[in-house]
């Protein structure tokens, strides 16, 4: 494995012969030493000019060069959520490194060293990057620090206890001697690795929790140097632009490629097969993306739709409505639901509709593969290393270690790049295989245009909820009965055992009616088996819909009970102090209970609140809206409170809340993928609009001070915004929105 991988790297266009990589992957379990000669740049052209030098590699997560550079190896993808910065912060804190000398490099696919300790495979998801790495990265830093201290102690013939470390320098205060990490690296590399290291007391943190620590990707993402998959070019590489069948499950019947082949620069036209979960299609290969696209546009393909999915969104929804009227599987049950609804003082009934949603990351899906010498090399913004490695290995009949993956920045993902079926990666491999059969042996970069990305499936599933709530004569919420209908994300995937129990996919119902203390509660789920539109997790997954129904229904119940929505929740959250904590904080900072400044003549203003826990983090948001006389509206301001345990990088936490609000608002206001007879009706940002700057509210974020272990921030900012805005719109207009997206529903009388 080691030799295969390192020789693959030796074929890098930069020509860097990398001895370190050979050492690095030589089956060194856990902590081990390896002197390295030239830093591996993981395909990062921007960094590929660094000179070789000796250094120190105490474990899988850090290398220290003689030039004082501290290279942190990140096992998690950087897709905008700040993971590179966060992982480096944890390690640098315990190392007492000079932050300005810390750089980050993506880890290769290697589950033994780089597995997500919560997921058991190497991959990023469920907002776990910081939480699962919190101790691991700190220990890695503390170990390296201990070895550097030992090296200095030996050189100076003093006790290690007499030394201090700060900003990448080891000091001996008694004698005034000092040495930089780079000066100690070679000596440290020869020392044994300590098995036990002491971690800092949190009160001594200097980087963790510090505001304004510069992001590690701050510079190269503002000067154009950051390298995404879209930007990688290998010698001899061909770009593949593809034609996909119009319906999921369609296949190629015949291709007339004569017009495409007549275009100068088109190298080959390659039909390829798909699987039950990946597209079949026809790829046009060229050196230039533009030529490949012209070739693609000139193809005349006849598709075979005989086994394709042919239902439209309207039919799917009608089926779901019928399913909701019948009993489903019981996901949660408490108390006596029938008694609660026998004679309620007040009854609230509501149906909710949630459409399919495309992730629409700014970088459309893409993947570069090179099949050569019995190996497959992959370059990708890689979110699911172990699964992708196994899928591709299986596809090619190779051992998994023959598939190497070079990590690159991802231009967004929101879950899309973690596909249990490795769909677009597998497609790139299928094209390279098919091209090889035509005698075209070249690295292949599959580039989906925005249209393939929008129509490419793996959507947030369409859901329908039917709910009824019972209140007693004192206004207490005594019954909650909700039936959710929608496709399972996990069923039928290699991860089914992970989250599907007794037919209930946990990601379908997570967050429904939670966390409220309601004596009689039943949550039912129906999972249609005949709907085969590819679905996937979408930033905050099930919470994207359950938080909406939960938090708008609670608001309805509060109104029905004649109580303030915050006070109404308080009684139901007695056992949930962290929910109550953020709810109270958001309410206080937003001036809940004070009167909103009036709008212009004819305008109505309103304030709404929502609270939701997801991925062990607690977020509450207050939204303020202005509704114009014609029913159009603007979200003016959002006040957000978050409790994510210890905030490792407060600025990143704030950024993730701001971004989560923007992402959630896009879905709330506009997001909808619809099917007509199985064909996706949207294709690009004109018909799948997302949020633009003129729709972005002012956002204020308040972080709860906490000593609890850190929890996720990538996703939890998303769920509360849609219900907070819906509740605000109700406060302004008296009208409930229960169908997503909001669109212009308030414009109709």
């Amino acid at each position, binding site marked *: 494995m080691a030799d295969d991988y390192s020789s693959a790297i030796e074929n890098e266009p930069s020509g860097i012969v990398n001895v370190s990589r050979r050492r690095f992957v030589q089956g060194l379990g856990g902590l081990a030493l390896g002197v390295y000669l030239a830093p591996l740049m993981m395909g990062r052209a921007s960094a590929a000019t660094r000179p070789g030098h000796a250094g120190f590699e105490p474990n899988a997560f850090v290398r220290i060069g003689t030039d004082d550079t501290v290279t942190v190896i990140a096992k998690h993808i950087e897709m905008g959520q700040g993971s590179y910065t966060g992982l480096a912060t944890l390690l640098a804190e315990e190392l007492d490194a000079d932050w300005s000398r810390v750089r980050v490099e993506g880890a290769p696919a290697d589950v033994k060293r780089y597995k997500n300790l919560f997921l058991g495979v190497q991959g990023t998801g469920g907002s776990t990057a910081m939480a699962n790495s919190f101790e691991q990265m700190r220990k890695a830093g503390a170990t390296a620090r201990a070895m550097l201290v030992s090296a200095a102690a030996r050189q100076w013939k003093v006790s290690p206890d007499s030394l201090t470390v700060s900003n990448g320098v080891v000091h001996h205060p008694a004698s005034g001697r000092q040495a930089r990490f780079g000066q100690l690296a070679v000596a440290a590399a020869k020392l044994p690795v300590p098995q036990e290291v002491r971690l800092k007391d949190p009160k001594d943190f200097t980087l963790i929790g510090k505001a304004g620590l510069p992001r590690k*990707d701050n510079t190269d993402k503002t000067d154009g140097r950051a390298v995404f998959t879209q930007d990688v070019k290998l010698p001899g590489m061909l770009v593949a632009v593809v034609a996909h069948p119009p319906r999921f499950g369609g296949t190629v019947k015949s291709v007339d490629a004569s017009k495409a082949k007549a275009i100068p620069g088109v190298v080959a036209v390659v039909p390829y097969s798909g699987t039950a979960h990946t597209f079949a299609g026809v790829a046009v290969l060229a050196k230039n993306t533009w030529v490949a696209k012209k070739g693609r546009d000139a193809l005349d393909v006849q598709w075979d739709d005989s086994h394709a999915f042919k239902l439209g969104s309207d039919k799917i929804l009608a089926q779901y409505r019928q399913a909701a009227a019948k009993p489903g599987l019981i996901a949660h049950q408490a108390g006596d639901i029938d008694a609660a609804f026998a004679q309620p003082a007040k009854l609230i009934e509501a149906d909710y509709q949630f459409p399919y949603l495309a992730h629409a990351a700014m*970088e459309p899906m893409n993947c570069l593969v090179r099949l050569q010498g019995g190996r497959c090399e992959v370059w990708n913004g890689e979110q699911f290393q172990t699964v992708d490695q196994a899928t591709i290995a299986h596809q090619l009949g190779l051992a998994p270690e023959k598939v190497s993956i070079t990590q690159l*920045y991802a231009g967004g993902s929101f879950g899309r790049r973690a596909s249990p079926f490795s769909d677009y990666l597998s497609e790139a491999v299928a094209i390279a295989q098919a091209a090889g059969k035509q005698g075209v042996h070249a690295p292949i970069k599959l580039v989906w245009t*925005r249209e393939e990305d929008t129509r490419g499936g793996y959507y947030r599933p369409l859901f329908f909820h039917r709910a009824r709530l019972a209140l007693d004569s004192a206004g207490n919420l005594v019954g909650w009965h909700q039936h959710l209908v929608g496709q399972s994300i996990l069923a039928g995937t290699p991860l089914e055992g992970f989250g599907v129990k007794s037919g209930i996919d946990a990601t379908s119902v997570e967050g429904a009616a939670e966390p409220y203390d309601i004596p009689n509660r039943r949550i039912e789920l129906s999972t249609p088996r005949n709907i085969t539109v590819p679905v996937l997790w979408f930033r905050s997954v099930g919470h994207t819909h359950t938080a909406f129904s939960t938090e708008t229904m609670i608001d309805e119940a509060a109104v029905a009970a004649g109580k303030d929505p915050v006070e109404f929740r308080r009684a139901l959250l007695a056992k949930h102090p962290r929910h109550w904590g953020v709810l109270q904080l958001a309410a206080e900072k937003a001036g809940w209970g004070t009167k909103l400044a009036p709008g212009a003549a004819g305008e109505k203003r309103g304030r709404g609140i929502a609270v939701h826990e997801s991925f062990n983090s607690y977020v509450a948001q207050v939204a303020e809206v202005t509704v114009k006389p014609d029913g159009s509206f603007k979200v003016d301001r959002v006040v957000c409170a978050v409790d994510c345990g210890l905030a490792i990088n407060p600025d990143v936490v704030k950024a993730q809340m701001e971004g989560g609000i*923007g992402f959630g608002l896009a879905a709330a206001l506009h997001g909808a993928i619809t099917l007509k007879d199985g064909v996706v009706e949207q294709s690009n*940002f*004109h018909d799948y609009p997302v949020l633009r700057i003129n729709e972005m509210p002012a956002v204020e974020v308040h972080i709860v001070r906490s000593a609890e272990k850190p929890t996720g921030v990538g996703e939890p900012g998303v769920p509360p915004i849609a219900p907070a805005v819906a509740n605000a719109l109700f406060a302004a207009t008296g009208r409930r929105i229960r169908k997503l997206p909001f669109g212009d529903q308030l414009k109709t009388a």
Partner: protein
Amino acid sequence: MVKFTINGKAHSFDGDPAMPLLWYLRDELAMTGTKYGCGMALCGACTVHLDGQAVRSCVTPVSAAGGKKITTIEGVDAERVGRAVQDAWRKLQVVQCGYCQSGQIMTATALLAANKNPSDADIDAAMSGNICRCGTYVRIRAAIHEAARALT
């Protein structure tokens, strides 16, 4: 033969004049800071300057650049306004995934070159053609104000 300058350097092009400038920059010159996002001038990720005007390079044929000065993200720091915008972006830590940010910076630079002290409404109007899926809009607004302050 089409002649123009890119970031101050003379170039000539004799390929298909209909090729969008975006793909010439990215695939022929390996200047990959300018990004593909939509191909229809809907998202702004491909924004460059043509004689100082922000244009969407995905729908601008190379032929339209004849005799003109092209500035890309790789060269925007050569001018005071561009440098100030990049500095403000870094100071306020605007970026998340970063894919759209070249385009955001190019549009913001063109805005500030034309309007030294834009209001929020001016910013929203000028920047609404640039999509950011990570939702960095709050910081984009703040960074443009910050750059405007730094330039006065």
